[in-house]
């Protein structure tokens, strides 16, 4: 096989892993290094993203999972250049195809947003303008990034709605958001996101507000579009089941920090961080025998203003030792594609 000579190996999951060095460089869409984003509120400094590094390659779906306050959405907003007062990106670097985004002007970011990097937000009702028809909203995005004529824009809008499998696209063009169902609204947002063929699409809890059968439809669509346009996708969610189904690689965040990163199969078959393990154990599972009690993680997610000393998870961690309460564990590479921030990591790997 020719793919053999290129160093492409096909994993059991069906995803293709490039091992050829040059190819990695070429396919790297996003590279975030030591990103620190804070919010200076009256109550104190919120350490929303606390020194995280991650990357995204073309054609892959990266899942970022975490509970509320884990910093997953702020990470996305930092990439989009949408952090506003009292928030501030304090340090770090966000490279888009090798180009530093943090040095871009507002005007330059406007060009990149929507055209190169697009984002779909959680609540489709609040991210659509209630006073504009679907057609007008899509036309606005096209007007901003392209030089299409009125008629061309309309034709493109219908084409986009067809791509996102909207029923009766010509008719829907004249509808207002309130006339659409939740699933249809999310389709409109996805149509707007892909309207300028972006290379990176960030989906922030895209289906949390939707029913499960509609959620399955949306993810089927996302998979299809990803293959069609060779985009890199970042999927932000709290739902570990959704991640297992649609991501190639997963990052787990807790209280502003990345605590674990792994290829999707490894994360579910061999979770290492005590938080990841706790989360996976605590969700009721359809395919497992009914348990009397769910193993739950004790305590609550800490406030980002008053983070505990040492490892953020240490107050809830059943493996925590003295060192965990005082020293912050750095995130270290423990295997190809796997990173972990835990002092007890050595014991789990054996």
């Amino acid at each position, binding site marked *: 096989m020719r793919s053999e000579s290129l160093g492409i190996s096909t994993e059991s999951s069906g995803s293709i892993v490039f091992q050829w060095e040059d190819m990695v460089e070429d396919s790297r869409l996003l590279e975030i290094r030591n990103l620190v984003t804070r919010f200076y509120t009256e109550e104190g400094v919120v350490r929303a993203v606390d020194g995280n590094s991650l990357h995204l390659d073309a054609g892959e779906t990266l899942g970022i999972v975490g509970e509320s306050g884990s910093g997953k959405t702020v990470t996305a907003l930092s990439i989009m250049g949408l952090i506003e007062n009292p928030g501030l990106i304090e340090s770090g670097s966000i490279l888009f195809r090798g180009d530093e985004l943090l040095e871009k002007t507002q005007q330059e970011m406007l060009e990149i947003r929507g055209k190169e990097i697009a984002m779909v937000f959680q609540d489709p009702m609040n991210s659509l303008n209630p006073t504009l028809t679907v057609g007008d909203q899509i036309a606005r995005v096209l007007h901003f990034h392209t030089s299409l004529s009125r008629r061309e824009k309309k034709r493109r809008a219908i084409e986009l709605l067809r791509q996102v499998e909207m029923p009766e696209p010509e008719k829907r063009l004249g509808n207002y958001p309130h006339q659409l169902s939740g699933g249809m609204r999310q389709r409109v947002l996805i149509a707007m996101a892909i309207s300028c063929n972006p290379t990176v699409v960030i989906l922030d809890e895209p289906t949390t507000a939707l029913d499960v059968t509609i959620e399955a439809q949306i993810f089927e669509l996302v998979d299809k579009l990803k293959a069609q346009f060779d985009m890199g996708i970042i999927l932000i969610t709290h739902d570990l089941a959704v991640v297992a189904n649609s991501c190639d690689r997963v990052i787990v965040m807790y209280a502003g920090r990345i605590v674990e990163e792994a290829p999707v199969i490894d994360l579910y078959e061999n979770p290492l961080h005590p938080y990841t393990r706790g989360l996976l154990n605590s969700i*009721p599972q359809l395919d497992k025998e009914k348990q009397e009690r769910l193993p739950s993680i004790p305590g609550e997610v800490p406030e980002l203003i008053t983070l505990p000393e040492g490892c953020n998870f240490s107050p809830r961690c059943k493996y925590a030792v003295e060192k965990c309460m005082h020293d912050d564990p750095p995130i270290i590479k423990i295997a190809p594609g796997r990173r972990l921030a835990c002092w007890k990591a050595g014991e789990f790997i054996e």
Partner: protein
Amino acid sequence: MSSLNSNDGSLVEVIGLKKYFPARGDWFAQMLDRRQIKAVDGISFSVPTGTTLGLVGESGSGKTTTGRLIARLTKPTAGQVRYKSKDIAPVSGRQLKGLRRSVQMIFQDPSSSLNRRKTAGQIVKEPLRIHELVSKQAMESRLVELMEMVGLSHHFLNRYPHEMSGGQRQRVGIARALAVEPEFVICDEPVTALDVSIQAQILNLLMDLQDQLDLTYLFIAHDLSVVKHVSDRVAVMYLGKIVEIADTDALFSDPKHPYSRALLGAIPRPDPRAGKRMVLHGEVPSPINPPSGCRFHPRCPEQIGEICWQKEPDGITLPNGTSVACHLYADEGR
């Protein structure tokens, strides 16, 4: 779904229950537009004492309205809700107040179901005061007892909802519901608004309390994994109708109704090797003008022909005790 034989140990029995809402809000619009939203359209089931009936369905299926009808927060258009064999639809006044003691509700979003201007102590005290259950002297110790029962220390009595986390607020909501020592508790999506790591805590708490206090639950949720974990029996609703009622194990190992199958197939598994999700096409139609015949027929992957859009299927009880409303099983009734 007919299990009309009463006195089979059922605490709550629902018979042919219907609730229609006008499609328009104000009276003038109603004059012009007499259409009705058939939120619940003739459902029957029973909940035996000490058990949990799970009620699942997507948005618009009528599951929340069913819960509100049983709690008598709204009056049925037709049909009966029998509590201990007595129809509660016509009760009012003193009797209704008595019913409120026996039937309580835990709501989805603890931040909007708790009064922001009151402390946890005042919130839990209110039902005790209204029902005159505890003397002034004994109040403090009863409040502490209730808080401990839901896993909160007495310090929380003086806290306002905004000073608590989502999980703690839901614990207060549970304490308020249990303060009047109800027998039947309707849990309406009690963990949906909570973080994943907190959901397990609350589910464990609800199950512990059921054992301790011998409670009977109606557990309403859209998350089938959660429902499987807590329920003895599960009813699946679609567009105002119950399409299947089965023992939990039977439903999850061998779902009968095509909609139940589709719903189960659509759920993502936390397992990357689980394979693709089943995709059910189309959306839930409008409850104002539901499809003819079987309401699921426009989306049904297992349609058998004319009968599906011409005749509404009756509930058929299968040999394993599952009750299913689908023409596929017309010849298999017990």
